[in-house]
Structure formats: C-alpha cells, structure tokens
C-alpha cells in the first residue's frame, strides 16, 4: 500500500517537473525571437534616417559620409521579385500537376522527394552553382544571374507550400467539376487555383520573404554596386549584402548604418510575413467552405 502511494506521488512529481521544463523551453525559444527583434531594433533605430532609404551611396559613404542604401533596397526588390516570378512560373504547374495528374503516382512521389531534397540544399551551393554556370558561359555578375540563383532557392519553398495547400483542396469540389464534364486541366485552372488562392499567395509571399533575405546565393551572382540597375545585365546591390559589407567596415558610423540596414531588412521581411497572413484571411472569405 505504502509502496503504491509512493510510486503514485513520484510519477506525478515527474509529470510536474517535465511540464515545467517544457514550458521553460518554450519560453526560451519564444524569447529568443524577442531578443533578436529587440537587438536589431535598439541598435538599428538610432542610425536609421530618412536619407538611408531615399538616397544611393554618395562619395565617401563607406567612410561615414552622406548617402543611403536605396540601391540595395531597390536591388533586393528587383532580385526577389524576379526570382519569385520565375519560381511562380515553375511552381504553379508543378503543384497543379501533382494534384491533377499525379495523385498517388510513383512520379508524383519522385517529384515530391526531389523538392524536399532541393529545399534542403543550402543557398551557398545554389550561389556556387550559379557562379559555375556564369564562368562557363563567360558571364559577369548581374541582376539576371542573381534572379536565376534566387529562383532556384525559392522554387522548392514555393512549390512545397503550394503543394501542401492544394492537397487540402476539398475532393467534393473537384469531383463536382469533373462530373459536370470539366477536363482535369479546367479543374486545375478554374477550380483549384481559385479555391486555393489564399494558400497559393501565402506560399508565394513565403518564398519572396525568403528570397529577399538570402545573402549567400546573390553573393557570387548579383555582385554589388552603388548604382540602381537599369538593365538585367547590370550588377546589383542587395540588402543582405549591404548589411554584411557595412558590418565589415572599420568605421563605426558605417557599422551603425549596417545595423540600420538590418533593421530595414527585418521590417520588410516582417511586413511580408504579416501581409501574407492578412491577405490570406481576407481572401479566405471568397472561397467555398
């Protein structure tokens, strides 16, 4: 009797203990987000000026003189938009194919496996691959090369996200459309893309956010310049590299601006993240429940 009681108490103590350390672990993980945001905000805000976001670097900018990083902001938007566009052109057909034509097929499994594997390849390898292609073709660092490298980084992120939502498509809707005589292509185009639009947009913005923050893939491929690119063959600056390069400066003012650039990048990424959430919940009103 006594033994039983003791056992009873002990396992409940363990239960309590485990629960407590689990909560502590959750708090640690959650507070690391707070710490990161607080560090970036408190160190970036003091040197964040209007000039930073409206001017390109002027002479002596990298020694602490006037100017801003508009070149990097615009460059990053170009790079990420271009990469996202190419990724959409490839992702949407792949995701639709997996749903419409390759349900439960061996080929569908291969494609999904390949996407998972591609998703795990680090962006530095895509950057090195882009660079290897460039030297083979005799090309120089350019906006186009950066866009292609980013498209490769974004492709698996976007396709997996789209596949994930399209798979949740209510089967009844699909069956109803097929029963009315639609072809699979018509179902994919007119039913799936509309019903799953909120999820598809979330996937696109997720990939865009990942693309705009990625440094390792554009390091080799897009180069860096103080000018805003006017053609696809120009090299272009990007925000992550603006942060990275300015932090390596021996001048404290320039390093401070690097923190401010990190803050700008963080704000853009957070806006994209919240924006996609908001947009998805708005668009959800127009789907069949």
């Amino acid at each position, binding site marked *: 009797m006594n033994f039983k009681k003791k056992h009873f108490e002990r*396992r409940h103590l363990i*239960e309590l203990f485990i629960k407590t*350390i*689990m*909560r502590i*672990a959750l708090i*640690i993980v*959650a507070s*690391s*987000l707070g710490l*990161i945001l607080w*560090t*970036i905000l408190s*160190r970036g805000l003091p040197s964040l000026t209007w000039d930073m976001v409206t001017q390109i670097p002027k002479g002596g900018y990298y020694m602490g003189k006037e100017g801003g990083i508009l070149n990097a902001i615009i460059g990053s938007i170009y790079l990420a938009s271009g990469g996202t566009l190419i990724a959409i052109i*490839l992702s949407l*057909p*792949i995701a*639709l*194919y997996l749903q419409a*034509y*390759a349900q439960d097929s061996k080929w569908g499994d*291969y*494609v*999904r*496996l*390949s996407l*998972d594997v*591609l998703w*795990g*390849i680090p*962006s*530095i*390898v895509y950057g*090195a*691959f882009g*660079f*290897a292609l460039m*030297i*083979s073709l005799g090309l120089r660092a350019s906006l186009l090369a950066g866009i292609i490298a980013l498209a490769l980084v974004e492709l*698996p992120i976007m*396709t997996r996200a789209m596949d994930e939502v399209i798979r949740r498509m209510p089967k009844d809707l699909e069956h109803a459309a097929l029963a009315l005589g639609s*072809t699979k*292509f*018509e179902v994919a185009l007119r039913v799936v893309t509309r019903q799953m639009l909120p999820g598809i947009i979330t996937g696109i913005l*997720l990939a865009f*956010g990942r693309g*705009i*923050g*990625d*440094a*390792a893939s554009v*390091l080799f491929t897009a180069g860096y310049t103080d000018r805003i690119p006017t053609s696809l063959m120009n090299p272009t600056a990007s925000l992550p590299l603006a*942060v990275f390069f300015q932090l390596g400066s021996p001048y404290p003012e320039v390093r401070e601006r690097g923190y401010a650039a*990190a803050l700008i*990048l*963080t704000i853009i*990424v*957070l806006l994209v*993240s919240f924006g996609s*959430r908001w947009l998805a919940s708005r668009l959800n009103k127009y789907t069949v429940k």
Partner: protein
Amino acid sequence: MNQVNVIKTIQENRTKKNIFAQKIFFGITIFPVILTLIVAIALFFRAFPILSEYQLSDLLFGEVWRPNQGLFGFRPFILGTIWVTTVGVILAVPACLLVSIYLAEYAHARTRSIAKPILDLLAAIPPVVYGVWGLLSIVPFVDDVLAPLAEGRLDSVPLLSVTQPTGFGILAGGIVLAVMIAPLIISVTFEVLSTVPNDLRHASLGVGATQWQTIRNVVIPQTLPGIIAAIVLGASRALGETIAVLMVVGNVPNIPTSIFDTAYPLPALIANNYGEMMSIPLYDAALLGAALVLLVVILIFNILSTLVLQRMLRRK
C-alpha cells in the same frame, strides 16, 4: 447535325488542351527532379581541374590551406563545419524536443496558436539578421559571461577550455545556429508526433499511465525514426548555413580543440573568397570543390531523413 459537329470540335479542343497542358506540366516537373543532378554535375565539372591534380584524400585531409602556394587542405574547414554544426545541434535538440512534445501533447489550442506564428517568424528572419544579432548579443555574451564562467573551472576539461579572448568562435556560432534551426526541428517533430493515433494515447491513459509515461512509452517509441530524421534535417540545415555563422565564428583556419576556439566552416570559406578566387590558379576549382563536398554530405543527410519522414507522415 451542324450543331453536333460544333460541340464535338469544342470538346475535342478541350481534350486537346487538357492533354497539351498535361504534357507541358509534366515537362516542368522533370526540372526539379534533375536539378540536383545538374547542380552536382556543374560543380563537379568546375572542380575537376583540382580533383585531377590532387588526390581526394590529400584535399579532404590536408591540413594546410595556402592557395597561392598550391596547397589546398580542406581539413580545418571540414572540422570547423563539424564542430559548429555539432555544437548547434546539441544546443538545439533538447529544447526543440521539449517544445514540440509540449505543443503536440500538452498545450492548449490557444498556446499553439500563439507559438506557431512565433516559430514562423523565427524561420522567416533572414540569416544575415541572425548574424547581426550574433555579433551584437551572442559574441559579447560568450565573451563577458560564458568564457569567464568557464575560465579556471573548466580549463582541465577537454573541449571546454577557454582558449581565446574575443567571444568569436564555435560556441557563438553554435548558439546562433541552434536558434536558426529550432523552428525547423520543432515543426517537423510536431508533425511527426501528431501522426500517432489518439486511440493509442487513450489506451495508455486509460490503464492509468500519466501523460509523461504515455509520451515516453507510447508516443516516442512510435515516432523515434521521425524524430531522428527531424534532427538530421536540422543538422543538414546547420551544415550549409553561411552568412550568420561566418559573422560570428572567427574565420581562422585552425584545427579546433575547444568550443571557445575560432573555426572556419566550409560555407564561410566559399563565401569569403569569391572575390579573389579567379586570380590564383585552381582556387576557383578548390572553392567549387568545397561546395561539391558540402552538397554531397547534405544530400546524404537530406535524402535519408526525407525518405523516413515521407513514410511516417503519409501514415496520417
């Protein structure tokens, strides 16, 4: 009669369009399947000059890295990668498992709905921002708090003795990596845990087990391969992380002996030297070879864990 013909043509057109679209779409799906191979072949092709000139074992295990004298030993970089990744994974795994078990087994729906966006945001923060955070918070933290704490007390413990006084090094890199891979490990483990049917839990709870006993004796044994795969996935993510690690790890090509040492992981080597690699013979081949080594290791990790996870998650 005429009308019937018109309808027939329309139908034929629609069928043709359907078949056409199917072919085009199928063609596009070939791209991701062969892309990995294309990347590997392109890197191999560019790295070939150095692979044909040196023995593979000399490259992988050589200790000296002096490209302008023709010495390309990857050993310090490979060891640096292994050290930083190991420290990152060791720091991340306990907390991540606890959090994912908590979210899957204990937490209220409300806690989950708060935790999910937090994890999504952690995953969305760009690597370079993690690097800035590491530089501003973690490096001083290692320097001011952890190193003095270990100094004198742990000097005799191998792997933990304080060797250099700046805060930059494996420990700082590992801490940053741990936070970066946490959202991935947590979300995959969470998914794996939720494949366990509730009936199993109820059966265990019904015979009087506590929740923790249920988790330990029923849920975890059921999902162990998936949990391991989640950790391997996190490790492979850590192996390839470039910018954030590069900013805090010190980048000195030495053979590390302690977590307070500096290191120089492979991705950092590739990223740091892209500027000068065209001016020294074989340098670009060596760096793209480094990318190839990284790719091969990560592919092995990835394919294994993905196969396990695909099998587990389909059970749902």
